[in-house]
């Protein structure tokens, strides 16, 4: 059988070879970075190099980077540690934001997937308590890019802090902390070709953060626990490559756009989500009414093509997407699948996908007249 094709980069990206090489070297080193002897100092230097590499990816100062165990921890640390009781989060946020703030006020989305800025302004004005606004930079399911500069301007005008979950955006589009002017920014290594189990929270100057984990005072008291040296080294290496190859985005965007064109030709009834807004170049989320997402994902898996329905999280149950619901596309959520590309994606991978999908489509058309193939 042919090798399986991976088109689920927004769930996790395969490790970049540069990261794998850097980690292989780090695995051979013994040393706790808190130790003062030579072994400890050697690994301490590795962490600081990686900190510079991650900071450079988002235009931050290395001192603003706190390494964590991943995006979920970063988001929880930001929301739980910011000291603000009033939280405003967008309806399309990742579960790690929504569940970290169960009492948050929910900021609605427009049908195009972008946050409703007028609603944000009203909500901020309606309550004088100092707030934290949490809006992701790019959505994991649809790839829609939020107007973060506008969110920050509105929030700061009302004395609110802004947290931005940039887990899906970093490495796919340029992310510049000074330009975004967000106060807190979450990153995950494994979404940009680094290893799983490591992430970062970028903490803007003047933000006083209460730690989530107490202990040995690592990360300047902001995140206790012995640092994950190979993980951090791999994160740094992946961030360095991601920064160098941001023009890869243009290549992926062209692949994605060509794939969407072909899909529209095969099945004119296909609906693409988020296309009215700026989108990540690697992500395509679409539905064909009447063709359940689970049917598609299973058929594609059998054909050796890995895509996903919704986001990859806890239980394995495919739940209708809360993101599409927030975009007033609830009736189509059960039919939506996501194709997401990355550094190792090639034209041939998309051809495999299109072949498998159109085969499924033809089969279905014979039994379900509602799904009509193009003439």
């Amino acid at each position, binding site marked *: 059988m042919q090798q399986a094709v991976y088109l689920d980069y927004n769930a996790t990206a395969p490790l970049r070879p540069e990261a794998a090489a850097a980690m292989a070297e780090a695995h051979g080193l013994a040393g706790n970075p808190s130790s003062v002897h030579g*072994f400890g100092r050697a690994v301490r230097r590795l962490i600081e190099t990686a900190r510079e590499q991650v900071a450079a990816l988002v235009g931050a100062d290395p001192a603003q980077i706190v390494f964590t165990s991943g995006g979920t921890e970063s988001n929880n640390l930001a929301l739980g540690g910011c000291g603000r009781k009033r939280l405003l989060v967008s309806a399309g946020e990742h579960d790690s934001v929504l569940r970290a703030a169960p009492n948050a006020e929910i900021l609605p989305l427009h049908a195009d997937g972008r946050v409703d800025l007028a609603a944000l302004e009203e909500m901020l004005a309606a309550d004088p308590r100092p707030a934290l606004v949490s809006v992701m930079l790019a959505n994991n399911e649809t790839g829609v890019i939020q107007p973060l500069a506008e969110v920050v301007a509105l929030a700061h005008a009302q004395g609110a802090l802004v947290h931005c979950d940039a887990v899906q955006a970093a490495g796919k589009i340029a992310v510049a902390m000074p330009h975004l002017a967000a106060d807190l920014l979450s990153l995950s290594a494994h979404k940009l070709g680094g290893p799983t189990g490591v992430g970062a929270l970028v903490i803007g100057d003047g933000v006083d953060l209460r730690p989530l984990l107490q202990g040995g005072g690592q990360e300047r008291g902001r995140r206790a626990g012995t640092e994950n040296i190979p993980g951090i080294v791999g994160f740094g290496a992946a961030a360095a490559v991601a920064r160098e190859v941001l023009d890869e985005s243009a290549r992926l965007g062209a692949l994605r756009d060509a794939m969407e064109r072909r899909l529209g030709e095969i099945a004119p009834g296909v609906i693409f989500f988020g296309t009215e807004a700026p989108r990540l170049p690697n992500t395509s989320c679409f539905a064909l009414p009447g063709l359940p997402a689970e049917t598609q994902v299973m058929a594609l898996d059998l054909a050796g093509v890995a895509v996903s329905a919704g986001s990859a999280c806890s239980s394995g149950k495919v739940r209708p997407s809360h993101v599409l619901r927030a975009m007033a596309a609830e009736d189509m959520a059960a039919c939506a699948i996501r194709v997401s590309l990355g550094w190792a994606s090639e034209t041939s991978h998309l051809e495999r996908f299109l072949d498998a999908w159109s085969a499924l489509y033809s089969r279905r058309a014979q039994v379900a007249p509602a799904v009509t193939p193009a003439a």
Partner: protein
Amino acid sequence: MTKQRDRRQSAKAPKQIYLDYQATTPTDPRVVEAMTPFFVEHFGNPHSVQHGFGSYAIAAVERARAQVAELIGAEAREIVFTSGATESNNLAIKGAARFHKARRPHLVTLATEHKCVLESCRRMEREGLEVTYLPVRDNGLVDMARLAEVVTERTALVSIMAVNNEIGVIQPIAEIGALCRERGAYFHTDAAQAAGKIPLDVQAMSIDLLSISGHKLYGPMGIGALYVRRRPRVRLEPLFDGGGQERGLRSGTLPAPLCVGLGKACEIAREEMAAEAARLTRLRERLREALVSRLPGVRINGALRARLPGNLNLSFEDVDGEDLIDAMSGLAVSSGSACTSASVEPSYVLRALGLPAELAAASVRVGIGRFTTDAEIEAAIEQITAAVSRLRAAGPRAAE
């Protein structure tokens, strides 16, 4: 790229003898070998149940969970993967305290616990709970009579480490477990230093919560586990929320390669524990006997009998603490626990044994482990003897 490579080369391991196995252990090459395919080929997200990449990772994570469970006599589903022992300890202590604070607003721990246990307890004090920090006897062991006095029906959790990270003493875990069970309090043990080194059995020892660290047992960094008893069920409030992974106790994408590495490390440890313990005890006793016979005024800190095979903690009379580590520059040893060694305060663990500040400062922790050789121990004997003799010959520095 070249710049990065140069930096990495400059960070090569120094030519010191590594004797700091309680700070961190080198990753066993067999563990690296087991993990590598999951970094590179089998990179699927273990929560992507809808395709083959994900399923392969799920199966590997579940095998690893069973390997971890087997090391401590638990069931696989009682193991929650975390980012390390600091997180496990935070989750056990804060999680239990927050869940039960209405009816049981009291915690008990030891003055000699790891910083992350003590800091978690202090955090709970700030949240309105009452914490008893029990002193230890001068050999570092818990005073069972005093423990029995302070654990009451108001106590939610007793957190006592299985093995101390600085002095290596092994607490009477089974006795503590029995007492807690009788009083209805949860028993949590930080087994970061103990797991894989000494036999642990959550059933026989009545342990309700147990913390494991990957990088202390020749596994990878950035991964740990918390054992959470199911029968009778231990209830915890999670530290953070999200995708609801790990039965809702620990959200976040599981790092499949690290889980696999921890599992492999536990399997190796279980298979080789007895032989390794015997070898390390022999090396440690060789070191101890040689130093005690060659040097006067050497004190062994902590009980010698109830002790981790690979740990020796020594204090040297009439030696200035600050000079001591510098004088042994060929040895990577620790003067305190790694997490506190950036500050120059004498170890709070040694102070809790009743050591005066000066003597506590003139102490060294020697951590011996899987890759330590006889020749390295002989070299350590020579270097420590020479360093202490030289410092003493130079005379007391601070007579002022």
